[in-house]
């Protein structure tokens, strides 16, 4: 007990140092800060505007009105931003594998996966978080949800779960590089697929696809199921407070699976060689 507490304290200490380092490295290139400050909000403001245009052209999407879609979009962007802060490295895992960058992590007395994500913690993800929170607040107002203490707790639990699901998916995809020995920029593709499946209600898709998104690749749990339960929309699978907890459970399961797959891949890792 004493010992595991010590370990935890050690990890927290290292994390704090890493965050400090991350802040220092981002000020290295000032033009980069400006770039991220423009690029990320731009992406989500345009994305949000597009939803408005689509609703104006086509009317309600599968019974979801504009306010409810804004609520869904906001929460989806927030969990995306959190996954960008903590897990974006997963997108680049392939390059670490082919360039032998895991060597450094393997020689240190800390978890490899922990080091991989936290030595490169992406503080810039905050630029995604801000537009997400703004759209979410807007969605709360226009969809007319009742905000109570329980509601806030459910939102927070759901966000943790959603972030873990996203992170798990990034790690799972990234870890394939150990077996294929190649680096593919799946980030953009993953992003594109996630956009269409987390920012719109998946009930608009055919049942076969809904089945895949619910049970096989649990993207449905990133936003659709928890959000529809928060808004009181019947999604046919799960409603009420339990949904947020199921989301968290799915997230933990995904992370566990991803961690196991990563570690099995790491055994095959044999550096780049000179």
């Amino acid at each position, binding site marked *: 007990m004493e010992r595991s507490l010590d370990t935890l304290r050690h990890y927290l200490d290292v994390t704090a140092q890493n965050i400090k380092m991350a802040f220092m490295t981002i000020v290295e290139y000032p033009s*980069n800060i400006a*770039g991220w400050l423009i690029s990320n909000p*731009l992406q989500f403001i345009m994305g949000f505007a597009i939803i408005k245009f689509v609703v104006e052209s086509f009317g309600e999407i599968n019974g979801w009105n504009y306010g409810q879609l804004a609520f869904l979009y906001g929460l989806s962007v927030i969990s995306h931003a959190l996954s960008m802060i903590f897990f974006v490295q997963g997108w680049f895992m392939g390059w670490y594998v082919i360039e032998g960058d895991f060597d450094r992590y393997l020689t240190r007395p800390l978890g490899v996966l922990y080091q991989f994500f936290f030595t490169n913690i992406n503080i810039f993800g905050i630029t995604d978080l801000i537009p997400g929170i703004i759209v979410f607040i807007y969605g709360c107002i226009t969809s007319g949800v009742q905000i109570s203490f329980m509601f806030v707790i459910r939102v927070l639990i759901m966000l943790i779960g959603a972030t873990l699901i996203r992170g798990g998916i990034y790690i799972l995809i990234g870890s394939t590089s150990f077996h294929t020995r190649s680096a593919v920029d799946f980030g953009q*593709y993953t992003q594109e697929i996630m956009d269409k499946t987390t920012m719109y209600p998946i009930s608009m898709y055919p049942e076969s696809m809904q089945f895949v998104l619910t049970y096989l690749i649990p993207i449905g749990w990133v936003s659709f199921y928890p959000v529809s339960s928060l808004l009181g929309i019947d999604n046919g699978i799960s409603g009420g407070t339990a949904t947020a907890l199921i989301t968290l459970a799915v997230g933990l399961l995904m992370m566990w699976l991803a961690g196991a797959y990563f570690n099995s891949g790491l055994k095959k890792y044999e550096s780049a060689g000179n």
Partner: protein
Amino acid sequence: MKYRQVRRTGSAAGFEEIRMKKYLFIIKTQIIKSLTYEFNVYGNILMQTIIMITSAYFWRALYKGQGSVNGVDTDSMLIYVIISSALSVLLITNVERRIGGSVEKGTVATDMIKPISLFGMFFAEDIGSITALIFQNMLPIIIIGSLMIKVPVMADIRDLPLFVISVIESFLINWLIAALFGMTAFTAVNINALIQVKKHLIRLLSGSIIPIWFFPESVANVLYALPFVYIYQLPLSIYIGRGTRAEYLAQMRIQFLWLVILSALFFVVHDRVTRKVMVQGG
């Protein structure tokens, strides 16, 4: 052998041939390079197929119970999705990353010493990888799209020449925008964020995902004045037959104008930045 012959005759056409050969060689190497990573090919096809099918379902769901929205029906929209996915393969550029990388690592100095134009080299590399991608990605995507979604038949085959010309121009516009963004690396050094800005601008304002005609008129009018719409939406409109031939020609004039403006800008900026290269840790 051939080189000696040229030296002897010393004709201008011969030197031209050698110059072309250098670029052809780069194109060839790049094609071979693209063929080495087999998994990348399958991975890309798989991901692009998922995206294409999701988009098709997306539009089918929106069009449920509606015949034609803004002058386009479901079938045309599905063809739009397939051709947009296929076109996106042609519009992959690596020039911005190449410049960014070579400035950041300082290899730009050695790149510039090579007896070949820096941007000519990048252009040849991009042509090479796209040539490989046409067979590795584009054709499979069109075949998968035809089998799983719909056979993408062109609305009016007589517009085919217009379509081909507009695609070539859109490729050039896209490449020039990428090169111009890439050139900011010479002053800004790290341009990862700027590459993202460019990516989002093209993704969302070119009609590659959502056609501009679904936007409110005031917004759409602004976008028609910018070059992005002429990268995706113009060739796609011609393909699905949204509009008349007179409209296509009018838009292609603006497209050509943008091509001229961007080329001019490219050469001006090119001259400026290459004169003052900053090498990190050189």
